[in-house]
Each structure stands twice: as C-alpha cells, then as structure tokens.
C-alpha cells in the first residue's frame, strides 16, 4: 500500500513538472495502479494544457528537415538516404562554391521565422573567400566597467585554414595556425614552435564569422532589438536565442550584412564582448602566413611524430603487426596516406572524402593488453557486440590543441574507440554520426550502434534522489559560462555524491571514494548508471540524468541510487 501511494505521488509530481513520467515507458506494476494513473490524467484534463515553449515550431520544422519529410533540393536520393550527413556550411563551400548549392543548403537549415536575416548573412558570406580582422575581446562587469582581455589579429578562409596572432593580452605573441597540411603554434616567450597534425583540429578561435552565421541559422529565435554604430559602421543589433545556453546579441553591419560584434548575456555579473575592427576581405590568406617557418632561435617540438609509409605492409613491418581490416576505403572516401607512430607502434590510416575533400577520418590501430576503459564523457555504444566509446564533440585528442574554452564553440569532430582481439581501434572523423555508421559498416562489416536516449527505459534506482529543476537550470547556466566543468562528467558527479554520503559533514582532503573505483555501466547520453566498486561505499550504483539539456554540454544530476547490499 505504502509503495503504491509513493508511486502515485511521484507520477503526479512528474506530470506537474510537465515531464514524461518514467511509468509511461514501463509496464505497470498492476492494473489498479494504471487505473489510478489514468484517473490522475482525467482529473488533470480539467486544467488548460501547458503549451510548448518558444521555439517549438522551429524545432519541429528543423527536425522535419533533418529526418527527411522536408525535401532537400539537390541532394541525390542515394546520398540523402545512405549518409544523411549533416551539411554544415564549411563542407559545401569547400565542395563547390556555387551560389545555387549554397542557396539549397541555406534553404533547409534556416530556422523558422529567422529566414530573412540569416539568409542575408549567408548570402553575404557566400561571396567572401577569406577575411582579415582585428578582434578585440573584452569583459564587462556588473557596473558596466569594460576591460580588454586580449586583441587578436585574425586571418581565416572558408577551407578551414586560419592564422590567429595574439597582439595584446595574456598570450601576447602566441600564434596558432593551420594551413590544411600542418597545424602549428608559435610561442614567442618560450621560443618554441609546436607542430601538430592538421586533422583533427578542435581549435576554434572566438567569433569565427562562418561559425557565427551557422549558430544564427540554428538558433531558436532571432529578433531585431535596435541599431548602433561600431567603429564608424552602421549596424543592426539582433538578439539570438540559441538551442542551448543564454541569449546573446550580435551587431550586423548594414552594408556588408556580416556580424561585427557579439556580446554574451550577463551571467554571474560578467559578460563578454567581441568586436571586429578593421575587417577586410581578400581572395586568400597571404602565403607568408600559411607557410611554416622556424624563426631563429626557436625549438621545434613535433607533438605527433609519424613516419609516412607507402603501403599497409610497410606499416605492418614497422608496427610489428598487420591489421586485419579491409584495405578498400569506404564508399565515397579514399585513403589519403598511411603512417606509423613509431614510438607507440600505432598504424594510422588517413581517409578523405573523394568528392570535396572536406570530410576526413583517421583510423589508429595498435596492440593493447590493457583493459578497455571508456572515457567518462563518452556515450557507450557497440560495434557488432563489442563495447565502444563514442565521443561526439572531441575537445582534446592526443597531439592536438584543445578546443573549447570560454570562447570556443562545439565542433563536428567525433571519435569512436573499441578493442577487439588484443587490438585497439580508434577512429576520429569530422563525419556525422549517421555517416560514421556507414563508414564503419563499409570498413569493418559491423554495425555501429549509438544508443538512442529514452528508447529503452533503464532499470530505475531503488532510492530516488529529489532535485529542484530550477536549481539545475541555474547550475547549467553556470557551467555554460565555464564554472564547475566537472558537472559534465557523470563519473565525477557520482564520485562527489557518494563521497558526500560517506562524509555528510563535508569532504576534507581526498575524496573517500576514488575516481578509479567508479565504472560506467551504461550511458546513452541522457541517462547513465555508475557502479561503485569499493567495499566501504554505502552505495553500489548511482543513477544520473541530463535533466536540463540532453547533449554533451548538458550537466549530469544524480536522480537515484542503489544502496550497497
């Protein structure tokens, strides 16, 4: 009896919170309980329905574009059916810079109602090949006091090449560049030149024009809020409500129709303002900036030394093993080169899309005898029946400059890692998850399964942990602006939760439970179960959920646990 009362009460709480009750995805424990839940719904129908939040219409229309019912003009049935790849603007520009294609692509990524403004920006940017600007990044505090944090000299083109030099601020003298073949970072103070592979490159500099326009195209809402003059240029001020995070403003040049300034929303009494001064457009980034030269007195550090080989057999001879994989590139791709990381005996195969060269994939293979430990931030999927780590927004990879940070945005690089027969495979690619599934099927003959959140309800916790959704929403905003990044790591969140249960008075010194004693039982990107492998722990399993935002920027919250037996 007591249990039924509790279940019924939780069911009402869930409906009151306008959240789908867990019971709607599970078999009812009894016909009686189901009848009572039905009665709850009937009584509740006396209320007016809670209508969807702002942006519902645009979300559905955007969803229809992505899932197929809205026809994507110009896409061949084969490519749309088989790959259904996410076509971000860079790809199309790198592929064929024809106005027709751009128009088609813009046509299906435009959010509902924002078409005119975004379309104007996209058309304008379409005519740009490369640009150069002085970018000033400032913070504004609660009293309106503005402080310039850094000034960057930015060169960028539409092929993804860039040259970013810090000319003022903490990192004065630092240069980061990628010419499509190599990426490097010059640190004037340390007189060092670090060299990285050109791909994968999660580095994103702040206020990249194409990225800004893409963000606007994917926004929930854009509205005009005024006019202003920036560095002598007349601008229209727009307020953008993105898919996740706080609203922000952009100032769009009335003449060029390109953004000149971006200002974040005020959070924790601070906001960021990024302004382009002296923007100019060019056909290309100057050659001298795109060629790697070592200044006198600088030390070169190769962060990822590899030896190029002419065949897989040659690679096998150096690495000491011959990989048992298809030597035929997946459909639509070709093998660009093969190399071996001599130090780690890792064979690397570089794939590139045959049509436009935009999509790239790097497959790394090495022998291993250590157990498979997936990254805490990863979604757990399968390749065939083998456990697989899937990371959909790679921020940091061996030998690359991390992306992200306060001004960073998400990128389209994902990685898949698994072990089979004493070998570890890792595929890093800028291919959509759907495209990656086809890529892996072609290469290995096995299906990649990415768990779909909410599809299969997980086993519920024995003890539920209450939460306040408003508190969680505020925490999400705080994490969005760079605080408490650990809330993005379900293992860390579980560690803190278990530790506080063990030391309710607070944690002094080390956590009573070690991070390594926690393992991920399941993680579909929205729900996760963490197992605690410590005999001292009063808890055996922790259940977490991404309550506020269900993507890799969403915080994890403990929603329940199982006590130790």
């Amino acid at each position, binding site marked *: *009896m007591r249990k*039924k*009362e*509790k279940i*019924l*009460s939780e069911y*009402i*709480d*869930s*409906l*009151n*919170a*306008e*959240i*789908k*009750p867990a019971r*709607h*995805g*599970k*078999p*009812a*424990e009894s*016909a009686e309980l*189901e*009848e*009572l839940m*039905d*009665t*709850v*719904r*009937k*009584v*509740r*129908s*006396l*209320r007016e*329905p*809670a*209508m*969807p939040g702002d942006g*519902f*219409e645009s*979300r*559905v*229309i955007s*969803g*229809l*574009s992505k*899932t*197929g*019912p*809205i*026809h994507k003009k110009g896409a061949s049935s084969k490519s749309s059916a088989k790959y259904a790849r996410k076509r971000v603007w860079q790809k199309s520009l790198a592929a064929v810079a024809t106005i027709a294609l751009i128009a088609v692509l813009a*046509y*299906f990524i435009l959010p*509902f109602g924002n078409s005119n403004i975004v379309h104007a920006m996209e058309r304008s940017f379409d005519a740009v090949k490369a640009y150069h600007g002085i970018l000033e990044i400032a913070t504004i505090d609660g009293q309106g006091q503005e402080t310039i944090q850094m000034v960057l000299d930015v060169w960028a083109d539409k092929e993804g090449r860039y040259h970013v030099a810090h000319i003022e601020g903490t990192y004065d003298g630092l240069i980061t560049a990628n010419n499509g073949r190599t990426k490097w970072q010059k640190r004037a103070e340390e007189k060092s030149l670090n060299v990285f592979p050109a791909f994968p490159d999660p580095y994103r500099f702040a206020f990249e024009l194409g990225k800004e326009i893409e963000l606007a195209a994917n926004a929930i809402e854009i509205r005009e809020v005024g006019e202003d003059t920036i560095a002598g240029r007349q601008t229209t001020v727009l307020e953008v409500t993105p898919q996740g995070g706080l609203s922000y403003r952009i100032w769009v040049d009335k003449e060029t129709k390109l953004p000149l300034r971006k200002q974040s929303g005020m959070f924790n009494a601070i906001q960021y303002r990024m302004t382009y001064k002296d923007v100019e457009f060019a056909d290309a980034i100057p050659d001298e900036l795109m060629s790697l030269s070592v200044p006198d007195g600088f030390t070169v550090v190769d962060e990822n030394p590899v030896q190029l080989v002419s065949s897989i057999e040659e690679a096998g001879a150096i690495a000491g093993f011959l990989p048992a994989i298809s030597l035929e590139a997946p459909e639509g791709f070709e093998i660009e080169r093969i190399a071996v990381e001599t130090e780690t005996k890792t064979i690397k195969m570089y794939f590139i899309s045959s049509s436009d060269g935009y999509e790239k994939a790097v497959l790394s293979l090495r022998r291993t005898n250590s157990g498979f430990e997936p990254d805490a931030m990863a979604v757990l999927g399968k390749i065939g029946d083998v456990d697989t780590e899937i990371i959909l927004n790679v921020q940091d990879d061996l030998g690359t400059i991390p992306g992200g940070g306060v001004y960073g945005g998400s990128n389209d690089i994902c990685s898949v890692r698994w072990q089979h027969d004493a070998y570890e495979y890792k595929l890093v690619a800028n291919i959509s998850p759907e495209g990656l599934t086809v890529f892996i099927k072609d290469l290995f003959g096995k299906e990649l399964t990415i768990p779909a959140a909410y599809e299969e309800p997980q086993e519920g916790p024995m003890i539920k942990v209450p939460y306040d959704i408003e508190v969680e929403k505020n925490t999400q905003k705080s994490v969005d602006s760079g605080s408490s990044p650990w809330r993005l790591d379900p293992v860390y969140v579980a560690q803190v939760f278990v530790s506080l249960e063990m030391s309710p008075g607070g944690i002094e010194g080390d956590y009573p439970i070690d991070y390594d004693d926690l393992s991920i039982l399941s993680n579909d990107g929205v729900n996760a179960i963490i197992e605690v492998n410590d005999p001292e722990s009063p808890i055996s399993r922790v259940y977490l959920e991404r309550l506020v935002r269900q993507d890799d920027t969403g915080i994890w919250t403990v929603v329940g646990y199982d006590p130790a037996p």
Partner: protein
Amino acid sequence: MEEKEFAKLQEGDRESVEKLFASTWKDIYRFIYYKVQNREEAEDITQETYVRALDHIRRSDKKIEKHVDFLKTVSLNILRDRWRKRSRRGTMVGIESIDPTETAVEDSSDIVSQRELIRNALDRLSEEQRKVIELRIIKGYSTAETAKIMNKKEGTIRVLQYRGLKALAELLKNSV
C-alpha cells in the same frame, strides 16, 4: 486542399509543410496533451506525428481531405504503438483503453460533458480527499506544499490522495 497544394506537400515542399504545420499543430498538440498530460511527451508525439504523417502523404496516392482528422489518427496510432510496446513487457491498461470514448475529444461538447462527469465525481468525494486532489493535481502543488496548506503530514497527504483517486476511479467507472 487543392490538388496542386497536395502535390507540393507530397514533394516535401518546405513552404507547404510549414503552412500545414502552422495551421494544425495547436489542435494536434492539445489532442495529444489531453491524453498524456505532460508537455514533454506531448511535444515528442506531436513531432513524431508530423514525421509519420508526411511520410505517409509522400508514399500514398490518396489525397488527404481533412488534415486535422488525419493527423489525429496518426497521433493515436503512435500512442497505440507505444502502448503495445509497453504491454509486451507486462500486464497493464494502456492510455487508449482507459478512455473508451477516445474520439470524444474530437468534439468539444464531449470534452465538456467528460469534464462535467469528473467535476461531479470530485464533488462526491470526502472534503479532505477532494481538497488534496484539487491542490495536488489541478493546482499542481507539491506534497510538501499541500501538507503545509492543509496542516497535515506529507504521508497523510499521500494516503488521502491515494484513497481519493481510488474512490474517484470507481465513481467514473460507474458513470460511463
């Protein structure tokens, strides 16, 4: 709907799809919400309804005359599918089978009479049971808030709520 307009919809023409969506989604959403009583699920099923409906339109030769009726049928099918999935895992009464007059919601006069039935049944509960159900379900207060308002313990509120709903279920069963 004209032949030309329907053909454009079959082609997946964005403007036609947007027009159809803008003119129908509120009806469909309300219809689904009436069944599931939570925004998250109603949004989800509304979206799925349009995906399936447009897919059907694209593959079908038959012209759809009444869009709202057609979309409501599609959404009911989705609800039934979900119910079937659930019923495979255990014995239960599904969202659909609990309302033998499911099509009643398509007629606003039926909604009014259904609401009248519920109100009448509520009036026949004990004073305390009715108050708990009104506070918890119609006004949306938490157990703690309801306990505070009624000056009772949370456990007592849960018991009153359970008993009140049981009595209400019986009353509604007998009034159908």
